[in-house]
């Protein structure tokens, strides 16, 4: 990436104290994202995707310990004074959460929630804020926006609610939007609509976006770069086309294989990844994927692979036995 990064996550680690010992939720992650670009973070449940996004926003649970640096727009968010951090959130950094049922306040109207955000951050007066709210709701594809302003979240459908949550997140023209599994709670037809909406608004506002998902299919067409996470670590990172063409990490391959295919024979069993993610309170000495990996050797169980560079410096992977290419042609 030639342009300077808008957000760079440098060596970030998050530890959560639990009764069974410390849980390393995020394990020394390095990521960069440039202005206007899209980064996809993919991984199965519990691999630290959400904790990473919370770490970027500095919204970790109080007991969590964070180390490393989160540079956003030239300043380190870690240890930034709370008042400046508060001003940055919402205005420059915004987030869309997974479940629109719970991310909107159930007892306030849509209008109140939108208008107050605008008034707080952009210091608009009541009428201007209301006008802008209507525009925003219209922009995210909500019909009859004036009427919606007076409604409560429970009166809207799930897709509508997620659109409202997106409108609130977009309200102050953030430079970076973190979408934390924005479509997981929605049904499939709505998913595509919401993702299209996010992509459209992103292009229009030239904002950077981090799209967190467990679905490789979601990131395929919509991101510039993908980071695959497993057990708190980034195990493969590449520009999206390179990742899908030449994936190196067996875990990425396994994730992709686990996607249902439209051309598969009816009732063909889905190739699942056997086993479970490792217990994060008992770290594995070697590669964390080794117990489930079909290529694992003794070395994999003994040592942790470092992030190696593939054919281009943008493509990195953590594996001793990288796949040659998806097509089986030696690289």
């Amino acid at each position, binding site marked *: 990436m030639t342009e300077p990064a808008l957000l760079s996550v440098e060596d970030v680690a998050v530890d959560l104290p639990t009764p069974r010992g410390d849980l390393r939720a995020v394990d020394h992650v390095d990521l960069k994202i440039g202005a206007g670009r899209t980064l996809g973070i993919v991984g199965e449940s519990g691999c630290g995707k959400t904790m990473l996004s919370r770490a970027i926003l500095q919204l970790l649970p109080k007991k969590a310990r964070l180390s490393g640096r989160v540079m956003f727009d030239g300043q380190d968010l870690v240890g930034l004074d709370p008042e400046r951090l*508060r001003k940055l959130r919402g205005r420059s950094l*915004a987030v869309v959460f*997974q479940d629109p049922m719970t991310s909107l306040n*159930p007892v306030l109207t849509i209008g109140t929630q939108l208008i107050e955000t605008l008034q*707080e*951050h952009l210091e608009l007066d009541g009428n201007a804020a209301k006008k802008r709210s209507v525009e925003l709701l219209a922009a995210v594809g909500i019909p009859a926006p004036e009427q919606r302003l007076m409604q409560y979240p*429970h009166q809207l459908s799930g897709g509508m609610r997620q659109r409202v949550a997106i409108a*609130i997140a977009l309200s102050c023209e953030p430079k970076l939007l973190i979408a934390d599994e924005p479509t997981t709670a929605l049904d499939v037809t709505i998913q595509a609509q919401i993702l299209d909406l996010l992509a459209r608004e992103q292009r229009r506002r030239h904002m950077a976006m981090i799209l967190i998902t467990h679905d490789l299919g979601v990131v395929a067409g919509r991101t510039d770069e993908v980071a695959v996470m497993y057990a708190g670590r980034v195990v493969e990172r590449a520009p999206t086309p390179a990742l899908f063409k030449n994936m190196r990490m067996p875990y990425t391959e396994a994730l992709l294989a686990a996607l249902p295919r439209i051309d598969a024979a009816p009732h063909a069993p889905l190739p699942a990844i056997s086993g479970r993610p490792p217990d994060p309170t008992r770290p594995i000495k070697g590669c964390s994927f080794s117990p489930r990996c079909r290529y694992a050797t003794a070395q994999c169980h003994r040592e942790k692979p470092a992030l190696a560079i593939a054919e281009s410096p943008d493509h990195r992977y953590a594996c001793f036995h990288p796949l040659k290419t998806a097509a089986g042609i030696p690289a």
Partner: protein
Amino acid sequence: MATLELSLDEEVAVTPARRARRLGPLFWAAIGWMMFVFAAATLAPLLPMPSPTDMDMLERRAPMSALHWLGTDGLGRDELARLIYGARISLIVGLCAPVIGITIGGALGMLAGYFRGRFETLVVGSMDVLLAFPPLILALAVTAYLGQSILNLTCILGVLGIPAFMRVARAATLTLARREFVIAAQALGATHARILLRELLPNVFLPPFAFFLLGAAVTIVVEGALSCLGLGVPPPISSWGSMSGEGRESLEIAPRLAFLPAITMFLTVLSFNLVGDTLRALTDPRQGAL
């Protein structure tokens, strides 16, 4: 409850008539009695009746008559007038004390539930101390030092109510404070004050408020008990409790002097409870929709 779930979806279609039918006659009777007591208490000085403190020694414990509708008490004071003026005291104390409780207790509970940590430990600990303190001894001590007055009585009962409100508010806040909409508000850069007042308060408010009405009922009873023991309002001011207490002396000759204020208190407390319960039932299903 299930029927109410339906009404959430078609709220526009709900007509007042349907809601009224669901509330039932008992609720309206309770509302009616409360209105009646409130009106009588508010309009007491305007009502055409004898003064509640004028004694008529020739008419002691007089039976009901055109002049004294409910007769007179042991000192020849008009029983009806004393009941109505007593309503003022009982209602003032019964409503003001829970207001103190809900304000201080609610605020402490929300702060404790939201900020957690040492502050919560401190608040919960001090509330436990307050709960462990015998209320009657506290009331005795305060009235002994500061004297008997309506203000002191209200303050004592208010302070005694704080722990309960604190617990209700804290419990409600705890379940909500880690909800995603609170994190979403933080992610949007909301201040703690904003999150507490705009995001949490409207959600937390309902349980303590339903408890408030029950608290008012309890306070009226406690005020009655304290007055009955002579720890309540100073004479000659009447309250339902002190009237029952005074009536105790002539229980064999004129039992109505003790029973009339007791029945009035019973009906009022019952009304508060009924209304509080109905409102709670009405607002409860919203928790499910959260």
